[in-house]
């Protein structure tokens, strides 16, 4: 096959330039700046800064609140990822079986996808409202005196529920298309080979969905880590106090409310390393193992 090539060196560079400059200006430059300022202690009023080496990092390892938030972030990520994947899979499997009105049903399930995270958070506030939120009332019927923004556990519950609810449509779309790409004959062969529907699901359908599921796993961890910021911010109503928060929210809080730019930068550098590790994990381990054809 003949390979088409550029004869002029400058043309490909010119074509790539817009994309490269966007990445450089909006990603590499701030990232470099964050890396640099993580080694400094800034004056809260912006009059100067002092080089402190790794002190911002070592402070974090000794900061009990930071470690507690890191712990909560792990639990939060785990629960949000698990429930949004599990519920989306359940809905997709059921939607895949719907024959009549399938399109309407699927569209209704996807709608939530279009809602922005702060709006989702705001809807969460209404649902979990202390006086007339339907979910709060429901919990009270069950004997649970639910207090959003006051009780640590209750606020965490609301955050997780809203975050899960917001993420289900994305997962649903991917799972549904994954299900529909399984050849019909393979499912039929399984119907003849295995009487139990649950056995067929775990033995044939689920393994064939694994590539989709692993891709979504990474997407969902990233979502729970970073994109839930708007939901957390809205649910907390800007009053962090003793409320639960994730590491990303803590970066914002220390940097912009606490004016500790150095410490905040150090935290974001740690998050960058985390994302890098996730990405390497995805490409090295998972992409290689899960594909069958």
């Amino acid at each position: 096959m003949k390979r088409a090539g550029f004869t002029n060196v400058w043309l490909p560079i010119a074509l790539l330039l817009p994309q490269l400059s966007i990445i450089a200006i909006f990603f590499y430059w701030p990232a470099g700046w964050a890396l640099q300022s993580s080694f400094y202690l800034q004056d809260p009023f912006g009059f100067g800064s002092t080089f402190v080496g790794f002190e911002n990092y070592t402070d974090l390892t000794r900061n009990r609140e930071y470690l507690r938030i890191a712990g909560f972030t792990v639990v939060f990520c785990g629960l949000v990822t698990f429930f949004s994947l599990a519920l989306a899979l359940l809905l997709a499997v059921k939607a895949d079986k719907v024959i009549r009105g399938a399109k309407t049903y699927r569209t209704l399930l996807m709608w939530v996808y279009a809602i922005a995270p702060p709006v989702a958070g705001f809807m969460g506030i209404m649902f979990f409202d202390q006086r007339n939120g339907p979910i709060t009332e429901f919990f009270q019927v069950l004997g649970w005196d639910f207090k959003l923004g006051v009780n640590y556990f209750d606020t965490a519950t609301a955050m997780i529920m809203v975050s899960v609810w917001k993420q289900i449509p994305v997962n649903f779309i991917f799972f549904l298309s994954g299900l529909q790409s399984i050849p019909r004959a393979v499912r039929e062969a399984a119907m003849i080979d295995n009487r139990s529907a649950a056995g067929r699901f775990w033995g044939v359908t689920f393994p064939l969905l694994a590539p989709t599921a692993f891709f979504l796993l990474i997407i969902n961890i990233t979502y729970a880590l970073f994109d839930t910021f708007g939901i957390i911010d809205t649910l907390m109503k800007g009053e962090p106090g003793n409320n639960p928060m994730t590491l990303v929210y803590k970066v914002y809080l220390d940097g912009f409310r606490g004016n500790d730019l150095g410490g905040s930068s150090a935290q974001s550098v740690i998050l960058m390393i985390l994302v890098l590790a996730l990405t390497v994990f995805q490409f090295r381990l998972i992409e290689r193992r899960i594909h069958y054809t």
Partner: protein
Amino acid sequence: MAQVSLSNIRKVYPNGFEAVQPSDIQINDGEFVVLVGPSGCGKSTLLRMIAGLEDISDGELRIGDRVVNDVDPADRDIAMVFQNYALYPHMTVEKNMGYGIKNRGASKEEIARKVAEAAGMLNLTEYLTRRPSQLSGGQRQRVAMGRAIVRDPALFLFDEPLSNLDAKLRNQMRIEIKALQRRLGTTAVYVTHDQVEAMTMADRIIVLNGGRIEQIGTPSQIYHNPASTFVASFMGAPPMNLLEGRFDNGTVMINGGTALMPSPLQRSGPITVGIRPEDVLLEPTGPLPFQVDIVEELGAHRLLHGRLEDQNFTVHVDKETHVSPGALRIALKQDALRLFDVKTGQSL
């Protein structure tokens, strides 16, 4: 081992389309039955109803002594081979073949023994640890066969299993499947649109057209005594010549005025006359004029395409007979004529 009986089986889709008209079929124990017909004739629907993958709208289906209309596909004691193999892509060949009996509670030793046995039969032993994606089309087809054999079912169902293979492999697999079925003695229903497959593999052929059974019979019956003009033109390559003709004073004439033979039937009026291309002899003093337009060279034999009294006509001659386009005289072998009703197409 089992006989299969379909009584008044019918399939109507929710939109009102009748895919299979009420049909009766008796399949004997150990028999190899081929369902053949053009696309959309209902042959696959019929097979899928037997498998339980499609609901039966009306009628009664028995496998062995059991009515299985409402029995789950997994409980019908059948095994099916699909057109695109339908192997489980995430399982090795060994797991693919063992999946069915594993779910039926077979012990590890039993699974290993049966898989090894089937793999030996199909020359798959060295591929047992591979995934389907690492196999060629013919090997995948063998694995699909192996999966069916390991199950040791009462009935094999084949849904156009060879249509994804190239011509050479298809001929080879045709013989292998037939030989295997003979050896195992398992009843088999095989769907194809390829009349050569139908003729070569079947104990009995069922010809379907438009959701209706046109004819049930042995390959020889189907070929020599087609029940209708549809069967006559569908089975055989090239198909039977169908000429417009009429009865006249106890003689079969073709339009144009040439008399073919005295008729034993007492009737008069228009008629369709069927003549197989190989039932024609080239004779310089023959009674019929034949205008050859094209000679088709096929190596082992030749086909002469042309016109008989201005109607399309094909003659089959052996490789020793050299013919060039032009006018010839031909004669018919004894018992060469098949007569069909003009309106219904049915054999008379």
